[in-house]
């Protein structure tokens, strides 16, 4: 389901609201809160790769879709230009190339040492998930030759939020694999 919405709240900019700082000692005190005040929504991205073997051309093309929460991108890139706490479609569109530049810096695919697959972004859309709007980044990764396996290197947001997780699904003619990408599990091998 894809909905281009005109406007939606960007909760990460609620930071503009005044927050109460307790006395230094009370900084992290909360007896009652710790028992139930669990915020469930944490940072997730969804990465799906679909390999298409094309032996005729002697190379392998992998189609990718990478859904990244706009609120996470906003924290990293300040998409909310007017700072009104809401992200509009035009604010996101203005930053499309910045989003590409930022995200693809943290995703590498190779087919063995010194054999990187080149990633070419194709388009961006907005995807609606249960916990809010995501930027859906579509790309193709082209690997020379026809490797038997590829290695994925994933590092999105880990430096600013180590609890970020990439939910990874890989599909090829002969293989379906899933993995949970985390700072401790950032490099994944998958057979084609």
């Amino acid at each position: 389901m894809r909905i281009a919405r005109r406007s939606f709240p960007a909760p990460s900019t609620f930071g503009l609201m005044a927050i109460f700082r307790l006395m230094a000692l009370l900084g992290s005190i909360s007896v009652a809160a710790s028992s139930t005040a669990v915020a469930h929504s944490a940072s997730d991205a969804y990465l799906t790769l679909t390999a298409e073997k094309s032996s005729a051309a002697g190379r392998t093309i992998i189609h990718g879709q990478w859904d990244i929460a706009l609120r996470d991108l906003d924290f990293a890139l300040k998409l909310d230009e007017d700072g009104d706490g809401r992200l509009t479609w035009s604010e996101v569109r203005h930053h499309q190339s910045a989003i590409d530049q930022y995200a693809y810096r943290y995703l590498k695919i190779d087919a063995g040492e010194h054999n990187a697959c080149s990633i070419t972004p194709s388009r961006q859309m907005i995807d609606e998930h249960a916990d809010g709007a995501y930027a859906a980044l579509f790309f193709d990764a082209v690997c020379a030759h026809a490797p038997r396996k590829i290695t994925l290197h994933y590092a999105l947001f880990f430096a600013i939020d180590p609890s970020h997780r990439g939910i990874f699904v890989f599909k090829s003619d002969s293989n379906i694999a899933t993995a949970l990408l985390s700072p401790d599990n950032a490099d994944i091998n998958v057979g084609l």
Partner: protein
Amino acid sequence: MKTLRATLNATPRSLSAAKDLAEAYIDYSRQVGDAHYAGYAEAVIAPWVRAAAPPAAALVIQATILQYRHQFDAARGLLQKTLEIDPRNAQAWLTLATLDMVQGDYETAAKDCAQVVSNAGIDIGLSCVGSLRSYTGQARQSLTLLQQVETAAARAPAGYQAWVQGLLAESAERLGDWPLAETHYRAALRLQPQDNYLLVAYADFLLDRSRPEEVLPLLADHTQSDTAFLRLALAQSALHSEQVQRSTWIMAARFEALRLRGSEYFGREESRFALALQHDPHAALEMALRNWQVQRAPWDARVVLEAALAAKQPAAAAAVLEFLQKTKLEDPILAPLAKDLRAQLQEP
């Protein structure tokens, strides 16, 4: 937070700048019910936590983050490590007391609170002891102690006062004094209108008092928080609203997203969801029992009792019934549930 971030950027090696920013993120994370900020706090404090000899202040912050994510064992380990380095660290003792209360180990919590009294001062110490007593059949005393803290806190920051008001509301609920509980919830929310914990606790209060129509406006602007979203869905269900189907679908998708990311575990909420919105008492009971292995606050007991009754499996609640008897927890909502289950257990 912007200013604190700028300070840290200017002095990236300053532990005190990192500590201030991390604590602001954690406070905010709790306040709005949003785990992202706990992740940002973790990144800020990480260089010190990873050090060969991590400072106590960094360990306490990391423990608080883990506790917030219900990674209780790991949190406990870090707090013990902190106290080896700095045996008089008041924040570590208080966090440990909280942890022991959440896990139902009230004897150890009493020792932790004694340390809080001697290391953090009488007022914070009294709130520790006061909230502990509300779990051990001494809710009346608990209320008296917390009222003393309330008086002493008259000029404290709003966040602290709101926290004390929340504890008072909880103690009043233990006694079944609903008007008093409501007075304290409302006072707390006047001080901290956006606080996710307070909003959700008050919403639970309203649901129990058969006032679901008041939950909708209360939480309308808080759908981003999963705990708040669950209460909205429960209120819609109680009101037979057409929206409940959609909300149930979204809630299920959010739990699925949590399951996919693998780390965190929110059995209490999932059990309520399974019982009240998916009408699956067996799944609810299974989740409630698994949750009971991790957390033992009154609500954790309650989801087990409710699911055991609905699933017609009174024997499954035996451990919880024994716990209630042992701790003498007073609770006018738990008491009749426990009584029904005990009666069923005695039937031939």
